[in-house]
């Protein structure tokens, strides 16, 4: 029996195990939305209020669950509104399939109404993308799209769907297997390289693990923790790697880099062996590249060969999936002569203990409400059974510093692209994936305003997402840079007008709460958590508070500005 393009699309989504999509309708996707009504039992559609919200929500859904996030939008402006979200997912290697409507094939290139060359626009910010020109190619393209999104280094795939192709019909059969001659990611690390790496680790007196988001993507936290623990190797992570190693473990040093902890930045500078796992030596991590970890041999495990020796030359590259490689390494260690590793590394661990003691993360408690205090309170009350999303800026860095992430996929944040407005829709996506979990977006007043319209989505679907706004009435991180590097010339970073977030929440049908003093913080958090409704908590914080430590851009990691 023949099926229409729209039916084939939805059948294919079902075959891929998709039960939730985030979207916003329009003219070019009219057929798909019409057909979607017949699939409402099997595929849940979450109607957002802006296409950027759809793609960030699909992203939050994917990061929290490990499944492929799917969103559906119309042509032209619908498609271009997803671009920031697509680029966000691309930078952080999030598996997404973005379905965009397109004008009918005969009109493509004619500057038709709501036409945009979205395949051209997103070529540099997708892992791959497709324009479906013939309904007979549709099933295979959807199959390939999901395969590409979730395998290798994951990433967003965009599929552009012209209106006539969706109305056209053909026989449907979904391919069961897939083989692409030009796409074969390497999963198993090279055995000889792994052996060499293990020998190096066994000999090292001052080793350090530097773990990134790749560990979380490959579900390798257990193996990472085993490696650190068994062989007494201290661990630091990138922003994206937080949660891959238990944040409360004595071997954990906190985040590394521009706003990294003193012990992490000192250790990475003084170690004799650096084991990078699923991390890519980003400029926010390395600081001045020439001065980065100057005394160490470097092992780099990554599934993407382009990440290796891109910014920092590496001694032992291992291309492969982090989980597989770490498993092989642990196995390979069994052949090494047993040693008392903690004894061998006692001096190193003692030195690190010293750094931890002399310069811990801290802040000055002042007269006003401190953002760090709010985050610590949230952590204290929720424990670790919570999903935290963040916006971008000071709120993100304070969360990374002062919230202790002990499990993978509990911090969802835009690391690579640094997208303000990401956290709230991402929290909605995570809440859709985990309806019973506590999901909190730790936000700034600037970022939250960028996708505040999604409050309507949260209310409509009764998603009890909590937003904790660290409200300093300004664009805090930029203002911090202006304070430090522009001689306190605060050019356009202080908001003269800001909405009353409590009233705003109420206008959308959500709950608004406010705390202006330290003693109000705990009651507000407890009340918010007691309500199974979306809640916006407005924490009016000390606007002069800055994020420390801070390494100025381009400076070596040892040049930290401390509190």
């Amino acid at each position, binding site marked *: 029996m023949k099926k229409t393009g729209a039916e084939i699309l939805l059948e294919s989504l079902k075959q891929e195990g998709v039960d939730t999509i985030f979207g916003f309708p329009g003219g070019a996707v009219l057929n798909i939305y019409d057909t979607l009504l017949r699939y409402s039992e099997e595929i849940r559609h979450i109607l957002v209020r802006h296409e950027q919200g759809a793609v960030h929500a699909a992203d939050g859904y994917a990061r929290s669950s490990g499944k492929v996030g799917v969103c559906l939008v119309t042509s032209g402006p619908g498609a271009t509104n997803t671009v920031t979200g697509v680029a966000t997912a691309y930078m952080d290697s999030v598996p997404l399939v973005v379905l965009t409507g397109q004008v009918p094939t005969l009109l493509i290139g004619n500057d038709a109404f709501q036409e945009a060359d979205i395949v051209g626009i997103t070529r540099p910010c997708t892992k791959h993308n497709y324009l479906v020109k013939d309904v007979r190619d549709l099933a295979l393209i959807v199959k390939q799209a999901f395969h590409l999104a979730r395998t290798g280094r994951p990433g967003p795939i965009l599929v552009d769907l012209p209106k006539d192709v969706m109305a056209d019909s053909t026989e449907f059969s979904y391919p069961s297997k897939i083989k692409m001659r030009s796409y074969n990611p*390497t999963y198993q690390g*090279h055995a000889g390289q792994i052996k060499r790496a293990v020998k190096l680790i066994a000999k090292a007196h001052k080793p350090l693990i530097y773990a990134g988001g790749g560990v979380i993507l490959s579900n390798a936290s257990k193996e990472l923790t085993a490696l650190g623990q068994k062989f007494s190797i201290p661990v630091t992570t990138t922003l994206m790697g937080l949660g891959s190693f238990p944040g409360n473990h004595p071997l954990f040093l906190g985040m590394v880099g521009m706003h990294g902890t003193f012990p992490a930045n000192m250790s990475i500078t003084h170690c004799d062996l650096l084991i990078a796992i699923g991390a890519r030596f980003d400029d926010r991590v390395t600081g001045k590249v020439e001065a980065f970890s100057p005394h160490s041999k470097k092992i780099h495990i990554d599934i993407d060969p382009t990440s290796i020796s891109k910014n920092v030359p590496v001694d032992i590259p291992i291309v492969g999936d982090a989980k597989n490689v770490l498993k092989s390494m642990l196995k390979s260690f069994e052949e090494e002569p047993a040693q008392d590793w903690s004894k061998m590394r006692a001096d190193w661990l003692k030195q690190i203990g010293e750094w931890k003691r002399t310069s811990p993360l801290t802040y000055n408690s002042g007269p006003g409400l401190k953002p760090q205090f709010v985050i610590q309170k949230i952590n204290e009350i929720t424990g670790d059974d919570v999903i935290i999303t963040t916006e971008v800026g000071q709120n993100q860095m304070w969360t990374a510093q002062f919230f202790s992430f002990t499990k993978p996929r509990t911090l969802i944040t835009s690391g690579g692209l640094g997208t303000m407005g990401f956290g709230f829709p991402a929290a909605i996506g995570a809440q859709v994936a985990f309806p019973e979990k506590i999901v909190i977006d730790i936000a700034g007043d600037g970022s939250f305003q960028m996708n505040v319209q999604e409050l309507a989505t949260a209310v409509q679907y009764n998603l009890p997402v909590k937003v904790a706004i660290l409200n300093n009435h300004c664009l805090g991180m930029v203002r911090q840079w202006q304070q430090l590097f522009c001689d306190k010339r605060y050019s356009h970073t202080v908001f003269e007008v800001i909405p009353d977030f409590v009233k705003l929440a109420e206008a959308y049908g959500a709950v608004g709460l406010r705390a202006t003093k330290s003693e109000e913080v705990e009651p507000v958090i407890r009340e918010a958590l007691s309500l199974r409704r979306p809640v916006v908590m407005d924490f009016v914080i000390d606007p002069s508070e800055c994020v420390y430590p801070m390494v100025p851009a381009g400076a070596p990691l040892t040049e930290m500005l401390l509190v």
Partner: protein
Amino acid sequence: MRHVISVLVDNQPGVLSRVSGLFSGRGFNIESLNVAETLDPSISRMTLVTRGNDQIIEQIIKQLNKLVNVIKVFDLTGSDYVDREMALIKVNANASSRAEVLRIVEIFRGRVVDVSPKSYTLEVTGDDKKMRAAIDLLAPFGIMEIVRTGPVAISRTKKNGPNSSQRREKEPQD
């Protein structure tokens, strides 16, 4: 250093744009780029000439391999290969200089492909060095216009090229 890189790609719309976009987006330079179908009509071959230090060339090859439509990448530089490019050169040729231009064309085993009262259009084929020599010798007569293809290259040894797919990180043999 100058590198000649040969790339096998899916013969599909948009692939050229993916490759050229990769170069512009990442700040790699392209000196020349050639694309044409291979014996297998589903595959095209690109020959591109680029410049960079070892680290940049390594990134270029890895980034090319990462594109889903790229099947294989060969860096011909450093191996045994032949490269040729063709130029069409419109050069001033009046009564007094015609004979001399023709002599130069002959030396370079070129051909005259079009004649007008005041000019010759010449076809010259060769490697980079020969092209430069021909242009230098013709310049004094006044080159009105020149169109160059940029080089295409082929390996002298194995089919497709000296290196197998460089998708994997360079790892020593055990």
